[in-house]
């Protein structure tokens, strides 16, 4: 009353940023991410040495690089996780525009690094894959649109986000990068699912996907060969998959020993797509199970925390981010154990890769921002005697 009467300077009573962050952040998930990054560096010590030797560099060149980029990624993650959801959304929408523009420009000024797919911008010291940054931004934008669409008189957010998803998938398909395209579609699907997609529609879509895969199997020889190779019980030991399987078997429960692994010398993608095989060979099943548990912790904990969330946008964005993060790791490891057909996808935070670790930092940072504990108005429920 004194201030009201005498008009003293208004002071907003808010908690300081850092203590509030520390109090509300999902510490388990953040720790899991840090541990994963540490494991990634540890494995990089083994897995990236052959690559460095091949390129005539210092043996631990890529480890140092990864430490620098990873440090940047972790810093980004922490930075993003401190932002309030509204700020995250604002930045993500701006970022989405930039990423979409650069994705559209790829065919003109991108490089393919001799891999046959134009996915990167090269800046000399580093290369950037715009689709990596596009994914989290797109998920957040979609969540916003879907949440807004739930309001009465809200915008037609589902149609808009679906149109954007189709645009992105088309842009990715011309690179071509079907893995990322599938991830984008999956992320959109998760957001729509959590936002309350009708069950009949989901069943119809699943049926259509089944029909389409049968059709693709019967018409495309390339596709059919991939599937046949996946389904055949024998694995050709001369393929990457064969080497990976062999490495996992060699490793057994406790591994062949640090630095003793052989698979990293045979696999061209030992430091990225098949790093789990290196882990399995050198450190055994123990470390692999640790890695799986860490990813499971992040994803499942985030989803469970989001169950309590009342804000539709935060819930949707968090669910989408957690799912694309988790599914990427799942695909990578599923390929290595031949549960899924071969598809190149990195293991977030563990695989080597400059821009991908920063993008992963943005994704998880945004996810952590969404899963922070905040008042959910339970007290209002008590007073209003509303049902949940």
């Amino acid at each position, binding site marked *: 009353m004194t201030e009201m009467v005498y008009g003293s300077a208004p002071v907003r009573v808010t908690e300081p940023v850092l203590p509030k962050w520390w109090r509300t952040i999902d510490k388990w998930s953040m720790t899991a991410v840090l541990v994963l990054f540490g494991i990634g560096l540890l494995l990089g010590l083994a897995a990236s040495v052959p690559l460095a030797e091949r390129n005539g560099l210092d043996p631990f060149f890529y480890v140092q690089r990864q430490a620098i980029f990873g440090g940047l990624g972790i810093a980004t993650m922490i930075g993003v996780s401190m932002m309030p959801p509204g700020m995250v959304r604002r930045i993500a929408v701006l970022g989405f525009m930039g990423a979409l523009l650069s994705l559209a420009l790829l065919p003109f000024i991108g490089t393919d690094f001799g891999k046959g797919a134009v996915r990167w911008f090269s800046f000399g010291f580093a290369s950037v894959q715009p689709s990596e940054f596009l994914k989290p931004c797109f998920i957040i934008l979609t969540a916003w649109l879907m949440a807004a669409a*739930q*309001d*009465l008189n809200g915008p037609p957010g589902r149609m808009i986000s679906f149109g954007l998803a189709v645009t992105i998938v088309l842009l990715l398909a011309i690179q071509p990068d079907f893995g990322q395209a599938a991830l984008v579609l999956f992320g959109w699907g*998760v957001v729509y*699912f*959590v*936002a*309350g997609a009708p069950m009949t529609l989901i069943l119809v879509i699943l049926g259509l996907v089944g029909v389409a895969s049968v059709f693709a199997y019967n018409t495309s020889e390339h596709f059919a060969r991939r599937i046949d190779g996946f389904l*055949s019980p*024998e*694995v*050709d*030991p*001369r393929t990457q998959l*064969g080497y990976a*399987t*062999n490495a*996992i*078997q*060699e*490793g*057994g*429960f406790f591994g062949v020993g640090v630095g003793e692994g052989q698979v990293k010398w045979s696999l061209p993608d030992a430091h990225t797509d098949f790093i789990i095989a290196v882990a*399995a060979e050198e450190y*055994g*099943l123990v470390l*692999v*199970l640790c890695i*799986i*548990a860490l*990813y*499971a912790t992040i*994803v*499942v904990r985030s*989803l*469970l925390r*989001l*169950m309590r969330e*009342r804000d*539709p946008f935060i*819930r949707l964005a968090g*669910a989408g981010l957690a*799912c694309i993060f*988790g*599914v990427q790791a*799942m695909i990578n*490891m*599923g390929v290595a*154990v*031949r*549960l899924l057909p071969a598809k190149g996808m990195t293991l977030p935070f563990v695989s080597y890769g400059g821009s991908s670790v920063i993008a992963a930092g943005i994704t998880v940072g945004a996810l952590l921002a969404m899963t922070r504990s905040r008042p959910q108005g339970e007290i209002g429920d008590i007073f209003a005697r*509303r*049902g*949940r």
Partner: protein
Amino acid sequence: MIRTPLRPLARILSARAKGENPDAIERENLRLRHEAMRDKARTRAELRLLLLGLAFFMAYGVIGARMGLLAASEPMEPRAAASGAQILSQRADIADRNGRILATNMLTHSLYAHPRDMVDPARVARELAAIFPDMDAAALERRFTDGRSFMWIRKVLSPEQMQKVHEIGDPGLLFGPREMRVYPNGDLAAHVLGGASFGAEGVHSAEVIGTAGIEKALDARLRDPAQAGEPLMLSIDMTIQAAVEEILGAGMQMMNAKGAAAILMDSRTGEILSLASLPDFDPNDRPNPLVKGDPGDSPLFNRAVQGVYELGSTFKIFATAQAMELGLVNADTMVDANAPMQWGKHRIKEFQNKNYGPLLSVTDVIVKSSNVGTARLALQIGGLRQQAFLKSLGFFDPTPLELVEAPGAKPLLPPKWPEIVTITTSYGHGMSASPMHLAAAYATIANGGIAVKPTLLKRDTPAEGVRVLSEPVARASVDMLRQVVTRGTASMAEVEGYAVAGKTGTADKPKRTGGYYKDKVINTFAAMFPADDPRYVLIVTLDEPVNTMGTEPRRTAGWTAVPVAAEIIRRSAPLLGLRPVIELGPPDGITAVRN
């Protein structure tokens, strides 16, 4: 669905009445409805988030379990996936009529490389070149280092070579098992067997497919998994085949011929006991076909089946046999044989312009091989009946022999059949057929008049065929052929202990450009034995022979093909189980002794 209006009308009206702003009421209403919707959506979303969480948990669990299973399993020796269908490599053996192996399979290995796994490509290339002299170390090393991940080095290895490659000890050199076709008798019956090579090839096995001969003609039977255990029994008798090939080779050399063929056939069943064509080859190492020149000169060419030649005077017996069959003549009828015979603008002459006329008995037409006498008989028969008879003997179609080459060997027939063709065909000129055709036709005469189909497969029962000649006519024809040997052109065919009947044939070789060579002939001797009840037919054909043993070069069949055939009969008749007829001398006189 009934739309609930956003503005609750009753409250707004009463608010208006009180002078309050109804917008606040609308906003309040909207907020309440949003809250209700969100509560509903949240309940649904909670369930779905839980589902997602469970799905992820299970997926990670499955991956972990799978990792555990993999880690718990022993790493297997790297063995490549058997992609696609397994190649069936079991091929039936081929055996002769007594079950002796002519073709079988042997397990061996192929050699391939994974150059990326090679420790020292330069050393491997050098040592491989030392093991296989036909390989070039520099070229091998270039191929090992050009970035390929797989290459074949050798399709088959001998055990010694395999051991030496083992001793190189490079992990980039790998062996694949191979079932390989082996012909243990080398070039024996090469043209019958033909050969085999690899079809579809994988690292683990390769398909063996026939490339020629009976291997190709009966490829499906040989590869039939249902009959894999049973060898294919041929009619060929290995012992006789070896004897025939040996004698034919020696005869060919002695008679300076560039090629030779022999067929020994059982006239009752049509089984070919021996089929030889020289020069021959080793089916284990089949030579490449000639790229230029006459394919008929290639060792791969089967003269007995593929070679169609004008078979000359051997055809005359068909004219006399048909004339007798038609009742126009009998063996002793005298026919006009006055040479030369003028027919239109053609002049039919005898060998060396002789004249056997004015009249010859039908038997003597055969014995002396009179062109004019045969021509007169053929004119009596007429072209249409002649064609029908030759067709019934099988001269108008390829032989049904089980060789892939047989269907391609069509007899060369004159396009039209005027009387002059009737005349020339009667003594074997103007139309060409293979020795196999001739063997089948002579078998008809030998077996008493039944047409036979030649076959290379063992038969147990006599083939049932159409009767073409009556038995007495066939018998009379055999008697005539016997007299050709006893007092005619084939006197060298007298084999002690075995009565041989037969007919010689000497045909000038046609030039490719038209016309005939003066000094290049095809000599044929068509024989059957034993003459009193002929069972076996032997055809011997020599290509461009010349007998230089006498004072002048002789090119008639009587001097070339006949002695070779006689030698073959001398050797093979006992092998066939025929008893020689031993002519006993006068019995010792009995002297009564009284003492």
